C-alpha cells in the first residue's frame, strides 16, 4: 500500500458543527473568527444584490447625510453575523433554517468596522409527532469593535437526527454530542 492509500484509509474525519442534543437553553455561544468589513465587501454585496440606495455605495452622498463614510448595507451585516454562527448553529443540525424574526438594525456599520457574533440558545423543543426532529431558536447579536450592538435577531432552525433530509444517515454518521 502506498503512503497515499494508507493515508486515505487512516485519516480521521474532523467533524464540524454540533447536534441538537448538545445545545442547552440559556447558554451563550461566542462565535469564531469575527470579520472586518471592507469597502470592497460592502460595495460588491450591494451591487450583486442590486441594492440601490446611494448610502451603500456613494461616499459623498453618505457624508451629506451625516455619516463619516459610506454605510455598509445592513443585509451584509446580517449575513456576516449569521455566517459566523453557522458552524456551531447549523452545520451539525442537518435541517434547514426555518425563519428569522424581530431583526433590528441598531447602529450603522462602516467600512473598516470589525464584527463579532454571539448567540444565546433561547429554546429547543423535540417534535412530538416525528421522532428525530426538533426545533431550536437562538437570539443572535452582532457587535462592532467598540462593543456596540449593531444587530439583533431571532433565528429558528429545524434539527434532524434520524432519517436526515437529503438522504438517510446512519447513527454513526450523526454528530450529536
Amino acid at each position, binding site marked *: 500500500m502506498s503512503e497515499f492509500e494508507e493515508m486515505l484509509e487512516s485519516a480521521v474525519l474532523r467533524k*464540524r458543527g454540533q447536534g441538537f442534543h448538545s445545545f442547552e437553553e440559556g447558554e451563550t455561544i461566542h462565535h469564531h*473568527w469575527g*470579520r472586518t468589513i471592507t469597502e470592497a*465587501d460592502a460595495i*460588491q*454585496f*450591494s451591487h*450583486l*444584490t*442590486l*441594492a*440601490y*440606495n*446611494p*448610502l451603500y455605495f*456613494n461616499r*459623498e*452622498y453618505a*457624508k*451629506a*447625510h451625516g455619516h463619516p463614510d459610506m454605510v455598509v448595507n*445592513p*443585509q*451584509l451585516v*446580517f*449575513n*456576516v453575523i*449569521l*455566517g*459566523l454562527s*453557522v*458552524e456551531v448553529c*447549523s*452545520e451539525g443540525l442537518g435541517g*434547514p*433554517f*426555518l*425563519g*428569522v*424574526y*424581530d*431583526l*433590528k*438594525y441598531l447602529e*450603522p456599520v462602516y467600512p473598516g468596522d470589525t464584527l463579532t457574533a454571539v448567540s444565546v440558545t433561547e429554546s429547543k423543543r423535540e417534535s412530538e409527532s416525528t421522532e428525530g426532529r426538533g426545533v431550536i431558536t437562538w437570539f443572535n447579536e452582532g457587535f462592532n469593535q467598540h462593543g456596540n450592538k449593531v444587530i439583533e*435577531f431571532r433565528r429558528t432552525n429545524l434539527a434532524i437526527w434520524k432519517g436526515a433530509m*437529503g*438522504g438517510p444517515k446512519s447513527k454513526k454518521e450523526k454528530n450529536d454530542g
Partner: protein
Amino acid sequence: MDKAGIARLTSNNNYFEDFEVGQTIRHARGKTMTELENVNITNMVMNTAQGHFNLDQMSKTPLGKILCYGGVNFSLVLGLASQDTVENALAEIGLNNIQLKTMVFHGDTLYAYSRVLEKRESDREDAGIVVFKHWGVNQNKELVAELERTALIKKKSHWLEN
C-alpha cells in the same frame, strides 16, 4: 453636496409621501442566481455550510446539486425591491417574519413584489417610517421568500426643493 445635488441622485417617486398603505408594486427587474451570487456571497460572509458550495457532496444527495443559501435568496429579493422602496431611505431599521418557502438553485431567476403594510411618523420631522412586505418569486411563479422590512424614509417636504 447640497440639497439639490442629493435629490438629483435618486428617484422622485419613492419618498415617504409617495407610499400608500395597500399599494402593491411589481418590480421591474429580475436576476438569475448563479455561483457569482450564491457561492461568492456565502463564502464572503463565512457561512461554512458546504451544501452551498460543495457540488461533489451535493451531487450525492437526493437534491443532486448545490442549494443556494437562504440569506442570499432573501437579500437578492430585498435588493430587487430596493429602488422602488428604500432608495430614499435614511436607514433600514429592521426585518421580520423572514420565511424561505421554495429552494433556489443556480440558474433560477428571482423577481420581487412589494406591498406597503404600514406608514407612520417617526421621531424626526424630515422622515417617516414605512413597513413593507416583500415577496420573492421564481421563474415558475413559486414563492421563494417572504419578509417584512421597516425603513425610515425621507419626506419630500424636507428633502426635495420645490
